């Protein structure tokens, strides 16, 4: 990446290049960070503190107008949540969804992005837009079409499977096959976002590097592995982290298609938490949200380690 820039380092280092970057950098950095910090302080800090506080109390909906007239109950909400069998089922469903769904979505997105970036040269815009449409299509339309696709007798998926002699299951009515159906639907729905972000990252890989390597006789696959992938790392980390964060909170697909059924086989942590908010159990629901946060934080930290940036 630094192959072409050869500006020689200055002989006398300017005094601002100190140990911590120095005064000039620091001042500029704080000017640049100011808008975020102000808005963050105004609109994020207080709600987070208040909701965190709620998770340690027995706040119900009626207490919201008098937030201090509640009992402090420590970790009781958290332990209640963790010992709730439905919460545990939701946690298992969510883990299943994330462990299969995130790699699948990233794989499809990466394949599509590479194909559109390097593989073809015409009609790129059309394919790009087309692959992005699931993201912007109304969930109602998505639900109707997917319900039809997944119908046991006349649905398209089972019809196609039938051509290969496989008898497709009752996707939405079966406790084993409802999750795979959700994963498929979510992958279809979300790979477009990951794809356009990866495309942006791929665009920043200079063509000159590829040309140089091709001249040296490197095959397309090797070029991909040794030039593209390393440069794509920060973007890959981003896509992986944001997709995982999104999937750990998956909500829409089961909410619209199966309502968490059949028999709680597709209920997600987010759906269950949302239900608890709906019942007015604010303290409990807040604790569930923060449990989800802890899981997200751990998963994100793991990804940061695995896809560690070289800086």
């Amino acid at each position, binding site marked *: 990446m630094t192959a072409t820039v050869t500006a020689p380092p200055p002989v006398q280092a300017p005094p601002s290049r100190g140990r911590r970057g120095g005064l000039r950098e620091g001042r500029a950095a704080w000017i640049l960070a100011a808008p975020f910090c102000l808005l963050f302080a105004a609109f994020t800090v207080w709600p987070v503190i208040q909701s965190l506080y709620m998770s340690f*109390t027995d706040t119900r909906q009626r207490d*919201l*107008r008098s937030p201090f007239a509640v009992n402090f109950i420590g970790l009781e909400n958290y332990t209640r949540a963790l010992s709730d069998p439905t919460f545990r089922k939701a946690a298992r469903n969510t883990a299943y969804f994330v462990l299969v769904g995130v790699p699948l979505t990233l794989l499809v997105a990466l394949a599509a992005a590479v194909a559109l970036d390097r593989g073809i040269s015409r009609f790129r815009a059309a394919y790009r837009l087309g692959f992005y449409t699931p993201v912007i299509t109304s969930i109602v339309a998505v639900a109707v079409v997917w319900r039809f696709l997944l119908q046991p007798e006349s649905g398209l998926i089972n019809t196609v499977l039938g051509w290969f002699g496989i008898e497709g299951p009752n996707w*939405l009515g079966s406790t084993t096959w409802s999750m795979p159906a959700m994963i498929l639907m979510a992958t279809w729905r979300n790979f477009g976002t990951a794809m356009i972000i990866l495309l942006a990252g791929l665009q920043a890989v200079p063509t000159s590097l590829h040309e140089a390597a091709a001249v040296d006789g490197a095959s397309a696959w090797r070029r991909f592995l040794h030039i593209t992938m390393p440069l794509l790392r920060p973007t890959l980390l981003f896509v992986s982290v944001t997709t995982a964060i999104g999937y750990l909170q998956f909500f829409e697909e089961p909410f619209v298609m199966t309502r968490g059924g*059949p*028999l709680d086989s597709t209920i997600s942590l987010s759906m269950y938490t949302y*239900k608890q908010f*709906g019942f007015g159990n604010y303290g409990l629901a807040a604790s569930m949200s923060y449990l989800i946060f802890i899981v997200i934080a751990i998963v994100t930290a793991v990804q940061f380690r695995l896809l560690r940036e070289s800086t």
Partner: protein
Amino acid sequence: MRRKSALAVVLAAATAVALSACGRDDETSGGGGNADSQDISSGPASGTITVWAMGAEGEKLPELAKEFETANSGAKVQVTAIPWDSAHDKFTTAIAANKTPDVAMVGTTWMGEFAGQDALDPTPPSIDSAVFFPGAQKTTQVNGTSYGIPWYVETRLIFYRKDLAAKAGFAEPPKDWDGLKAMAKAMQDKAGAKWGMGFQAGGTGSWQSVMPFAWSNGAALTKDDDKSYNFDTPEMLEAVKYYQSFFTEGLADKAAPATPTTEPDFVSGKVPMFISGPWEMAGVEKVGGAGFKDKYDVMQIPAKKTSSSFVGGSDLVVFKNTKNRDTAWKFVKFLGDPATQVKWYQMSTDLPSVTSAWDDPALKSDTKLATFGTQLKTAQAPPSFPSWEQVIAQFDTEMEKVTKSGADPAAALKAVQQQAESIGTGQ
């Protein structure tokens, strides 16, 4: 480093102080007990009031509001239409932040919750509650006090294909439980139906299909003078067993999806019976096309002891922190007036909650609507406990196991009752 530890100490101290400041007073929960509500004045209304109404009602209400304004010069009614989608969230956040309107239309199953948050104003004595269907009036009652009036109602009947029933040998609709099951079976055997009855196999909202049978068997959902839940009763057990039998005997689809294709199945004859409310008449007629309305009819829930069903709809409430209580209640009273109710039916096809409005020829002439009217007389509402939604969700989950996996109804009801008792009524 010293700065950091000093900061930590300050934070810890602040947290300790804050936590010690919290704690409940032993006050009685809001929404209970006090029935004395200041009456509204006689004479015309004045001032401005804000009204929230959902969906199509919100769209059409301004017309009626204009009439009110003409009759009460000096009064102004500002109607804000809000979507049904997430309307509950809109109300709960507004209550939490004290940003409620003066008057609002509220779903009947939300009444317990909102009254329990001490957000609603009790109905003034001069508004007569006897003019409404008893089941509907009960939806406004929380802990003995009435909050608001029922505005419009709906109830659930069994929709059935008249022509297929005739083919199956049933010229008249059945009047009892055995008759219903026999008709479902006959429709499968003789009229080519795949599933005789389109019952929901448990899951969210399935209680609205099960409770009509429980109520028709005389089950009471509360005990101890309306102070606690009462699921584990012989009457309820009989109803649940009856409901389950449709699934075990192959008359209803265990594997039906969460959002079934009710209307096309009804029109095609695949599932020629289902339970629903008056809005489905328009639904099936749209899919069925011209002439379909003669092919189907609605019947009352068959009786075991009496025929009863679920009554829903929307109530009109006035919020406690209204700045113009007098005008607000006057507007509510206006909307509950029988003449206004008839006019509202003609504008919106919402069924009136005032019984005398049903004498109007517009409602009497339609036979299907008349059946709804008859059922409304005996229809019942669930108890308006704040915890209703959470408790009945447990019921729905158990019903799913009962219908899909053939779980034991007695054990299921015991589990529901246990859960209901541990959750409490929330009052």
